[in-house]
């Protein structure tokens, strides 16, 4: 059946908990809006999926000392990871071999970009020198949760969290861990806003994935984590299972550093591998949570790959990035949480802002909240560097 998921925690632009996320998805209510927390020249020309809580709010809620050197990435990560453990009703960490695998792309960039020119002289700023590297947020989360042994960080651009979930599942299956907290965290930063600006793939309006006239993506920030546990722990502790991770696939497009290939080869391979591992055929998939960034290149390439895998019977699909924005390293796990909510509620979520299908494929995503029977959900995450990953979640 796959690897059992027993807990989840999330913070994104559409809510600070699983319950709030569910409310927004069912409303449906997008979290995309105007940038508030970051000072940038581009504020008026972009829309973002920003979390309303400031760093000070997060510090208070997490009961951290005021002089801490958490970056926003670390704060968001701890917030969501703690919630995931609570949801799984885990308090005694050391009872079982427990690991943490977290994903990030920006790491401590949100502080580095503020303080780089003060690092030499300002003692207040210097505490952030050591928090620049990508492993820092993970180390802090591990320490706060008392996870002492298997701890690591993955960074494969926008497929990062999907790969973190995948590694966790493989370690459980191999019997190397009894349980593992898997997910990712990425804060918005001036660095990524300007980076995507140079690539000219950021929309000045609410993003419209899979639409013929899509103008690009909205950046977002989020952190989310799942708790995976072995069958032995589930049996012994009589744990309630939220859903199963039944398949996963990782492939590389090997086409271009940032662009996806025309035939969506990497995406096709990742989806095919995941289906094989789950021992499912395409017709078993009831809903696809697409990568769907709303860039012209990704959505076309992904659509072609979907048609290659599913032929003329592409299942109901949507991109929930129209709710959260593209949360980069966290996207894979944010959308994993949404997939689990969909399995629990037997409801699929709309692709907001869609008007007309792209002429190349004619594919139409789901545009309203729909109650359907959902047994298996396929979720895609693709990144720069050709990194393509697919996860399949199945009903408990």
């Amino acid at each position, binding site marked *: 059946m796959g690897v059992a998921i027993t807990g989840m925690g999330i913070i994104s632009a559409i809510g600070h908990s699983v319950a709030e996320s569910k409310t927004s998805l069912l409303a449906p209510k997008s979290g995309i809006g105007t940038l508030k927390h970051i000072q940038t020249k581009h504020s008026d020309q972009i829309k973002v999926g920003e979390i309303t809580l400031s760093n000070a709010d997060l510090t208070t809620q997490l009961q951290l000392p005021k002089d801490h050197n958490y970056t926003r990435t670390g704060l968001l990560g701890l917030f969501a990871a703690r919630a995931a453990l609570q949801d799984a009703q885990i308090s005694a960490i050391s009872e079982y071999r427990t690991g943490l695998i977290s994903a990030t*792309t920006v790491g401590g960039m949100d502080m580095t970009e503020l303080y780089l020119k003060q690092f030499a002289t300002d003692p207040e700023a210097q505490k952030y020198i050591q928090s620049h590297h990508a492993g820092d947020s993970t180390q802090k989360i591990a320490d706060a949760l008392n996870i002492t042994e298997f701890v690591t960080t993955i960074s494969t651009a926008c497929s990062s969290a999907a790969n973190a979930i995948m590694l966790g599942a493989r370690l459980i299956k191999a019997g190397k861990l009894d349980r593992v907290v898997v997910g990712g965290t990425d804060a918005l930063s001036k660095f990524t806003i300007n980076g995507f600006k140079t690539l000219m793939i950021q929309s000045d309006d609410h993003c419209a994935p899979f639409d013929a006239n899509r103008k690009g993506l909205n950046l977002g920030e989020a952190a989310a984590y799942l708790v995976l546990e072995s069958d032995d722990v589930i049996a012994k502790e009589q744990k309630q299972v939220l859903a199963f991770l039944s398949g996963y696939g990782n492939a*590389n497009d090997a086409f271009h550093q940032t662009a996806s290939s025309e035939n969506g080869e990497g995406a096709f391979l990742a989806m095919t591998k995941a289906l094989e591992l789950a021992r499912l055929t395409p017709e078993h998939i009831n809903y696809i949570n697409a990568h769907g960034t709303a860039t012209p290149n990704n959505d076309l390439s992904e659509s072609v790959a979907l048609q290659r895998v599913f032929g003329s019977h592409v299942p109901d699909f949507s991109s929930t990035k129209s709710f959260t924005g593209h949360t980069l390293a966290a996207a894979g796990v944010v959308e994993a949480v949404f997939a689990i909510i969909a399995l629990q509620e037997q409801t699929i979520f709309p692709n907001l802002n869609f008007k007309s299908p792209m002429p190349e494929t004619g594919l139409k995503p789901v545009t309203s909240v729909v109650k359907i029977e959902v047994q298996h959900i396929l979720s895609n995450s693709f990144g720069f560097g050709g990194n393509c990953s697919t996860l399949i979640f199945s009903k408990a």
Partner: protein
Amino acid sequence: MKNVYLHSAVSISAQNTFDSDGFLEDMKPISGSTVPAQYPNYKDFIAPMASRRMATGVKMGVSAASKALYNAQLTQPDAIITGTGMGCIEDTEKFLNSIIGNAEEFLTPTAFIQSTHNTVGAQIALGLKCKAYNNTYVHAALSFESALLDAQLLLQQEEAKHVLVGGVDELGTEIISHVRHMEDANTNGIQVPFGEGASFFVVSSEAKAIQLVDMDICSTASENTIQQKLNGFLNNNEVQASDIDVLIAGRNGDVFDPYYDSISTLFKNPTELHYKHLIGEFYTASSFSLWTAFRILNRQHIPKPLIYKGETKSKISTILLYNQFKGRDHSFILLKR
């Protein structure tokens, strides 16, 4: 569960380790705050057009990967897995400084595109047109070890037969100068230069002379608990402390070196080696020690500059690698000939 073997090992470091078929005969002492690697002739491995856009780490990584595949007589690996502590810090600093310097105007995408942590793994895949499993680990001093552990898992579980795995870090200029400054402000700080390099390996489930028996990582441990961890690790692998011929430790002279002393006391008559005084400290420096172990086991010879204490042995069959950074991110790697 399949066994794991090392088929090739290639290293670019501050020493002449890449071009030479020797083994540290022409060792040069290193000093100063930072020490760059001895770069190979990139033209032998990368087309000049592509090379121009690549930062140091990408060029080192692609070259080392290419030679590791060649030495293992492998054209297409079943997986490409890299580890990097600081990622593409040159391009990161470049893009960051153009944002600051030009007040967010007139920016070009090249540095941003090449600044993502998975650039090395991506460029290797692109060069080989390799569509296989591809992953990048970025967890400080466990970056390379995480990559190796993933490779071990793929091979043991028969998800792959031949895996290309490597660790790479480039110095950059700005962040490293601040890190050095903080280190030097502390009398108990790191006593070797900061360095850079790339070490790549082909690991395989196909039997060869040198076996990667097992490895383990641990995020936090005290000097006492690390002894227990090691005992547990050796027990799991049915290895006695007396079986270890050589210990290669990641000593860098800072206040956390007692962790190495703590491990060292478990062995009665060890040959203990160090290496960071030859290549510098960086998050993936430990990948150099795996290259060193591979050469020692193959050649049955230990170059003098590597010896920290003890005598060199006539027959070397089992080597243990131990590394940590600032008292955290501990790793054990056990190799056997």
